[in-house]
């Protein structure tokens, strides 16, 4: 092994030496081409000498090296490749360029990381910096499955079963037991204001599934879909710090959006006030207000014209609530169609 090492190292000198000489030779040939033939000859003499030496070395090497040792040969080729005098410079350059690019992009990554870090220094994790885009709450309904058109046939459970499943799933978080366990029963009719540090965990008020009575799915596990009296839950979008103005709770009212007012003859709201109680406000944000449960208003469409699409618009009513933005059909209102077939 020692011998191998030596023999490997030995040509390193002549290699470089030869390379230098070659170089010089070339230069000489360029500049002194027709001047001194003697000098040229002399150099020609030097070079073969070196080549001979090198050949000997190579012979030695191949003799001393048993043929089957593949990894060693591979390494040799690799090293020769890396030290190939003709390619050395270009390789080194490529390497350098790669390194520079790596360095450059690493620096850029560092810069952007730093910027992001600084950005987060300015942002509170509890309270959005700006809330003007969601000043007034949007409205959403459940069950929701890709579409706001409720088409189902009372006599074909397959057509409404997914609504029931969706509602059941949604209401799991509202189960009385869960609510009682996690959340406090806070006094109704007033804001549930929790002073104290921003980073303190906040308590959440209970909103029990049972508040929804006939639409809770407890008594009627089909939420009225089986009888053609579907329950639809209405949820107001959460907004950090939102308080219905002047202590008036936000009410919900639904009616036919376009067409005959009498298409919907009666709607039952649960809770009966058809409003979102003040105790569920304000919302303190996801981080501290972990168990916050969005209040719901259930609309029980007990008597709706069958076998025709009825467009329904449910609006929030209350001070400071905006429900007539033309461009946004979901701020303060929600529009959906009921098409109940019997």
């Amino acid at each position, binding site marked *: 092994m020692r011998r191998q090492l030596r023999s490997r190292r030995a040509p390193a000198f002549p290699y470089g030496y030869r390379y230098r000489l070659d170089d010089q030779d070339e230069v000489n040939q360029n500049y002194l081409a027709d001047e001194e033939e003697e000098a040229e000859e002399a150099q020609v003499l030097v070079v073969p000498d070196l080549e001979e030496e090198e050949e000997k070395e190579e012979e030695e090497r191949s003799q001393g090296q048993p043929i089957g040792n593949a990894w060693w040969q591979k390494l040799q080729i690799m090293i020769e490749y890396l030290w190939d005098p003709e390619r050395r410079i270009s390789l080194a350059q490529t390497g350098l360029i790669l390194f520079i*690019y790596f360095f450059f992009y690493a620096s850029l990554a560092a810069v952007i990381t730093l910027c992001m870090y600084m950005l987060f220094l300015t942002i509170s994790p509890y309270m959005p910096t700006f809330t003007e885009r969601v000043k007034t709450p949007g409205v959403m309904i459940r069950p929701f499955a890709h579409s706001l058109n409720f088409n189902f046939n009372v006599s074909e459970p397959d057509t409404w079963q997914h609504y029931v499943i969706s509602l059941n799933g949604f209401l799991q978080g509202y189960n009385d037991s869960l609510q009682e366990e996690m959340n406090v029963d806070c006094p109704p009719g007033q804001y549930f204001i929790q002073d104290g540090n921003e980073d303190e965990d906040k308590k959440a008020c209970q909103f029990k599934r049972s508040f929804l009575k006939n639409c809770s799915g407890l008594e009627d596990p089909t939420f009225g879909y089986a009888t053609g009296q579907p329950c639809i839950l209405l949820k107001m979008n*959460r907004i950090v710090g939102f308080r219905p103005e002047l202590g008036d709770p936000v009410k919900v009212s639904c009616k036919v959006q376009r067409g005959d007012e009498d298409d919907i003859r009666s709607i039952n709201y649960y809770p009966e006030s058809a409003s979102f109680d003040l105790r569920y406000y304000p919302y303190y944000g996801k981080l501290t207000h972990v168990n916050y449960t969005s209040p719901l208003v259930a609309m029980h469409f007990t008597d709706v014209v069958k076998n025709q699409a009825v467009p329904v618009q449910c609006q929030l009513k209350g001070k400071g609530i905006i429900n007539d933005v033309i461009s946004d059909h979901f701020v303060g209102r929600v529009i959906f169609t009921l098409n109940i077939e019997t």
Partner: protein
Amino acid sequence: MSRKTLEIYSVELDGTKDTKQTDQEDDKKYNDLDLKKSHQKEELKRELDLDDHKLTSEELEQKYGTNIITGLSSARAAEHLARDGPNTLSPPKQTPEIIKFLKQMVGGFSILLWIGAVLCWIAYGIQYVNDKSASLDSVYLGVVLALVVILTGIFAYYQEAKSTNIMASFSKMIPQEALVIRDSEKKVIPAEQLVVGDIVEIKGGDQIPADIRLLSSQGCKVDNSSLTGESEPQPRSAEFTHENPLETKNIGFYSTTCLEGTATGVVINTGDRTVIGRIASLASGVGSEKTPIATEIEHFVHIVAGVAVSVGLLFFIIAVSLKYQVLDSIIFLIGIIVANVPEGLLATVTVTLSLTAKRMAKKNCLVKNLEAVETLGSTSIICSDKTGTLTQNRMAVAHLWFDNQIFMADTSENQLNQAFDQSSGTWASLSKIIALCNRAEFRPGQENIPIMKKVVVGDASETALLKFSEVILGDVMEIRKRNRKVAEIPFNSTNKFQLSIHETEDPEDKHFLVVMKGAPERILERCSTIMINGQEQPLGKSNATAFHTAYMELGGLGERVLGFCHLYLPEDEFPESYPFDVDAMNFPTSNLCFVGLLSMIDPPRSTVPDAVAKCRSAGIKVIMVTGDHPITAKAVAKSVGVISASSETVEDIARRCSIAVEQVNKRDARAAVVTGMELKDMAPEQLDEILANYSEIVFARTSPQQKLIIVEGCQRQDAVVAVTGDGVNDSPALKKADIGIAMGIAGSDAAKNAADMVLLDDNFASIVTGVEEGRLIFDNLKKTIAYTLTKNIAELCPFLIYIIVGLPLPIGTITLLFIDLGTDIIPSIALAYEKAESDIMNRKPRHKKKDRLVNHQLAIYSYLHIGLMQALGAFLVYFTVYAQQGFWPTSLINLRVRWEKDELNDVEDSYGQEWTRYQRKYLEWTGYTAFFVGIMVQQIADLIIRKTRRNSIFQQGLFRNKVIWVGIASQIIIALILSYGLGSVTALSFTMLRPQYWFVAIPHAILIWVYDEVRKLFIRRYPGSWWDKNMYY
């Protein structure tokens, strides 16, 4: 002479043949051309069958239905005018306007944008089939893209049309008039209203207004140089002297000049049917080369379009394989294409070029073809005509020899500084001979015009002598009046002298004075005495030797030498009433007194030597191509520096070392004088060798065809060749050259039509200005393109991130268009006003194939360095907006699908708040605006760093180019208007951005600036290093 004329014909025809060989790629187009050409050739042949010169006056009258005395009637003339059209050369056939316009519509990036637009509509079509209420967004986008293409197309078309109009108005600037006999009246009418059969009168100084058959002539001589390139005056008379219409004396050709005398003739051909008209239209068949800048822009368009299409398709495939719908993928594709294509750039380039064209027009370079603005900058060889371009195109007295001494005369444009000794008595005699033995006269009515600018009737040498003596002696006409001429023998080629006999000034003195001038050796033969210091001495051997030395010396300078002698006739033999008879020569014409020699040359323009030196230091080879004699050519070449003082030709070396020319090592000579005769026997390889090996070349005695061969030889060396010329015979070479430069004053219309550029002052020095401007514009275009390309990455990244990471779209396609066609336009034009970084006239011309406008360094540095930094900066603004509104960057990942679902109206943000679709959409638009502002702010930094490529901005001066600041202001103002003014227009998807967001990207902008300064610092510090090689664009 007549043979020469014939040669011109073969020239034009051969000229087209030559191009045929080089342009073989274009087969189909070529065949058409060929057809046209052979057709033209046919016509030309028929023209050669012209027999008007053989007809008698009566036959002519009959043939053209005219009357030699009364001329045509006005009615008849109007009839002919309606039949034949006006007597003007029709400009070369132009591509129909609609084709030009359509070319603009599909050229460059337009095709990509069209594809984008069509894809938009297809996408809408698919959407519509699936869902009848599909949003019209993609239709609008398609319409906007189409509008962009159409508007930029219209703009480019307008720009081009405008620059063509400059030319059109230019040719209208020089109205020509003709004196014509109609309705038995002499009338002056515009030459273009001449018709066949008109009887016109021409006189010395006039341009012949059409091809005419002379009916009578009094000493008429014409200069056929615009036809043949030879400016030797040729006599014209009414006699039929040769079968060939081109050689006979009784036909005058359109656009040639009548030098002296008067003549009357009948118009036999007008407009395009004239001989010149035919040659001109033939020349227009020579295909002109594509301009270097057009090649460069094409190259650039290919690069960008290649990137756009490949990135687009790559991400289309990625999107499809990421299970995006094909429809969405198409929309991504459109976004990527729009982001990649610098929509405004080509319009910007056009504006930049036309700005430079305007600037050049102010400096007397009128650019016909906008792209030619840059061509001059990449020119590496100028093949310059001698006469008129390098020289003043007039004869002027250069040297005098009297009293055994050579004196130098001032040959500058105004000649006011005549510093030679005028006290000698010999000069008094000589000056008298010069003034008297001269038939040239000033045209009357020019009292207030400086002498040099006065129009003279007479040939070039006589004009020179007249002006020379007018400058020195004062009113020559007055002197001639005092010395009344009693007899005269005009110059003719057999006796080679001119003689006149005058009364003397002194009324008491009844001597007659015989003055004579002519070829020096002939004059000397007739002399027996010589005047030295005012004293007449016998002409001894030593004097004769002195004469010969002087004659040889002046002749060796390439000057035209004239000898002067005089004789006072004895009063007794020749009394006052003596009847001198020039035909009988009843007076002595020998044993005169030799007074002196005078040599004339067409002097170089005073600005030329300096300009040639500048060209040389700018690495441009100046080759002189002239029809003149080699000795004259070489002398002029030496005096203007085309052959520099230190270089020698092979012949010079041979003479210096007293060895045979063959023995000289050709490598020792830097200069070469090649005559047309030598050129004729040369193989193209030999010509290539000469062009490659000698840095200073003069081609003398060349025919116009050879001029074309020389141009092609230069082009074989990958050189960008500029050719100057003025005659019709030059037009093929002008056309063939990469940039043909015609002379505005001396140039013929055919030359101007064939040229890309017109020098309004005929001054070679203007070319240097043009070169400088051309180089500057190339550098500045580089900067403009670098500036424009940079933001492409910042525009592209949002789409790529959007597809891969699923962020809400950071910037909309329409918003991108507002950057490309809004905020970025004025700044990129402003870069055209940037001053040169270093002395651009001290570097070599760029290599046509190696120094590209957009090289990989530029692309890499713009795309992967600055572009990426910009993208990061813009993303920072975008993230800031979203984070401060509630969506932290982490929450944005993969939010795309839920974000864009219209029915989903309670998407939760990082704070647990729920957003309706419209609220999200509004936030998205705010994000667009933020991203837009981020790019805009960093483009300001980009604009500043692009001011220089090597120097520090502080070396260049931050405030020197005021237009840059106008550009920056425009960027900011447009952005402010878009955000705050149009923030409420939802279709544009801009929103009012909080003021603080405008400043988020500023640190990044500063970072870009600093980074670029560091780059430039290393480039300056380590020239030639790999950094320099890779980072300098």
